[in-house]
């Protein structure tokens, strides 16, 4: 959209902004304010009811400049509904499996996947390591991520990422993300934390998008496939966040039963939205408990069983990160990991040793060592 004006969303002709905030349409030679335009649409406006097929691409005035990357996963609410009707099993089944089986069954090459986490907290690392071991490639990734994104990118398994933040806060940047982006080996689309979570929320609501007031005016918006439009009720400009349905999501929880009911202690990040915005959901749990735990306190259930496809028992499953209230972050391990991550060879050696060099999560825990793990256990106040 240049300085001189923009293109009418309905007739496709140029319109110019006037001094008093109105728009002058070059085709119809009338001046109207944004509000009037909403009350009385352009003469060429076609109501949606008369069109049998929705346009694949939004009209030009609503599209952002061409710097925008493509949508890595297109919203498809009806496809999602049909999947939930035809493919998802809502019966009360025992879903307890090994991480090998969970990943083999529910994460496929080319899938759009995501892991729930905040920084190094409660990231399902045991499942991430299994994805690396099984070399599931061409993944598209929801990149509110950190060590999950780093491991998968370093292993060459990620083609595209919807990124919000990949960084180690007090410990600085991710050397792996830096190398991949600076070498151009991964495609990115930029989002804010709220935006990506609201994308999940839109999917969870069964909608194609949610409007929001964030990201507007920024380059973050220009480098995302989000769209802008005027709200038909108030006339205010809004960003439209496309719903994000994951092919597979992985969430690490404090406790689950074999059917997949889950409790999370403390903050829940985006676990609630993500668990309802995915086709397949793998749960890894610190502890497997009896279903009575949930029936006694049903208000504590963050994720009910029917959303879940697989349950994996993974004590210390977030290591070297932390699970709030149970164990602290392994600072020494993370520092040495970041040291390795500084070079391509270093991270390859790290993955060879701690990921590919162990058969499964049990083997990983043995490698880290019981004494070390015990020293990370949290006291009564964390």
């Amino acid at each position: 959209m240049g300085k001189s004006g923009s293109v009418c969303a309905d007739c496709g002709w140029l319109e110019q902004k006037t001094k008093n905030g109105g728009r002058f349409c070059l085709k119809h030679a009338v001046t109207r304010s944004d509000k009037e335009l909403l009350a009385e649409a352009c003469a060429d406006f076609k109501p949606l009811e008369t069109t049998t097929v929705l346009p694949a691409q939004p009209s030009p005035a609503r599209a952002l400049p061409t710097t925008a990357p493509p949508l890595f996963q297109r919203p498809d609410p009806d496809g999602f509904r049909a999947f939930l009707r035809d493919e998802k099993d809502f019966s009360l089944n025992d879903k307890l499996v090994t991480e090998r089986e969970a990943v083999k069954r529910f994460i496929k090459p080319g899938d759009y996947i995501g892991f729930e986490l905040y920084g190094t907290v409660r990231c399902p690392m045991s499942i991430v390591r299994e994805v690396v071991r099984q070399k599931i490639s061409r993944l598209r990734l929801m990149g509110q991520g950190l060590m999950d994104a780093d491991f998968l990118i370093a292993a060459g398994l990620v083609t595209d990422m919807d990124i919000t933040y990949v960084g180690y806060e007090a410990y600085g940047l991710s050397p792996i993300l830096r190398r991949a982006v600076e070498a151009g080996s991964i495609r990115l689309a930029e989002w804010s934390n709220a935006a990506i979570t609201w994308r999940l929320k839109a999917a969870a609501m069964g909608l194609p998008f949610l409007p929001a007031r964030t990201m507007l005016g920024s380059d973050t918006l220009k480098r995302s496939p989000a769209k802008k439009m005027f709200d038909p009720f108030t006339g205010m400009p809004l960003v439209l966040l496309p719903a994000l349905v994951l092919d597979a999501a992985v969430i690490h929880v404090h406790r689950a039963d074999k059917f997949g009911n889950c409790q999370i202690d403390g903050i829940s990040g985006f676990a609630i939205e993500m668990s309802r915005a995915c086709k397949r959901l793998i749960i890894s749990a610190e502890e497997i408990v009896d279903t009575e735990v949930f029936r006694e306190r049903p208000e504590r259930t963050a994720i009910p069983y029917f959303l879940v496809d697989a349950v994996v028992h993974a004590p210390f499953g977030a290591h070297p990160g932390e699970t709030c209230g149970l164990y602290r972050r392994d600072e020494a391990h993370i520092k040495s990991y970041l040291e390795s991550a500084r070079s391509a060879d270093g991270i390859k050696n790290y993955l060879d040793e701690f990921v590919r060099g162990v058969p499964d999560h049990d083997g990983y825990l043995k490698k880290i060592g019981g004494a070390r793990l015990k020293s990370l256990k949290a006291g009564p106040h964390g």
Partner: protein
Amino acid sequence: MADEISAAERLACTAARLMKGSTTVFIGTGVPMLAAALARALYAPGLLPIFEFGGVGSPLEKLPLGVGEFNSFRRGVAALGICDVMEAAQRGVVRDGFLGGAQIDSYGNLNTTVIGPYAKPAVRLPGSGGANDVGSLCWRTIILMKHERKRFVEKIDFVTTPGYLTGPGARERAGLPPDTGPYRVVTDLGLFDFEPTAKRMRLIALNPGVTVERVVAETGFKLKLAERLARNDDPTPLELETLRRKIDPERVFL
């Protein structure tokens, strides 16, 4: 003691003083956490720190190392999720948002995405995280940064988080909520506000021992000066003691 005061300590003390009387504050990672913990201990017992992953109202007796870490909600009043706190900011609940950044321009726009051209960056930075949401949705944004010429630049490489964008009225035209935007910039050299009409960054107070010339030399854009420049006080012994002994004894951020 004064000669040993670090940049992070100066930033934290000035920012903590800005939180006097505050309630709802959105706290980003790094120095803002130090400032909030210091403010909670000395100046603002009613402070309600809000962290993006859902921690609300922690007294911050222990310093969070991450915005989703246990200490971000330890002994807090609520442990919620991203949606809850971001939606609160969007409907106008959060007064002040405290942010850091890699680059800033005279309109208070922040870059935490790339250094260099986007398609071929010299350095890929972490990305927006919650920063864009804080800068878009909180009533006032307070930015904490180390003052260096390479960070205070005429044109930032990427507008991750909106300040006043291209000038007066630009936020509103873009659709951001009215009456929002950067309020103060706190650096190790001084304190800055934004001119009420032109929305350009303006020096309003100098830190002890800092000259206007030095601030100008460390700023890559034409800096406006307030008619009367105030002097920030040095961090007090109590502030330093609290920061060093109680808040960050392991010196993670200090």
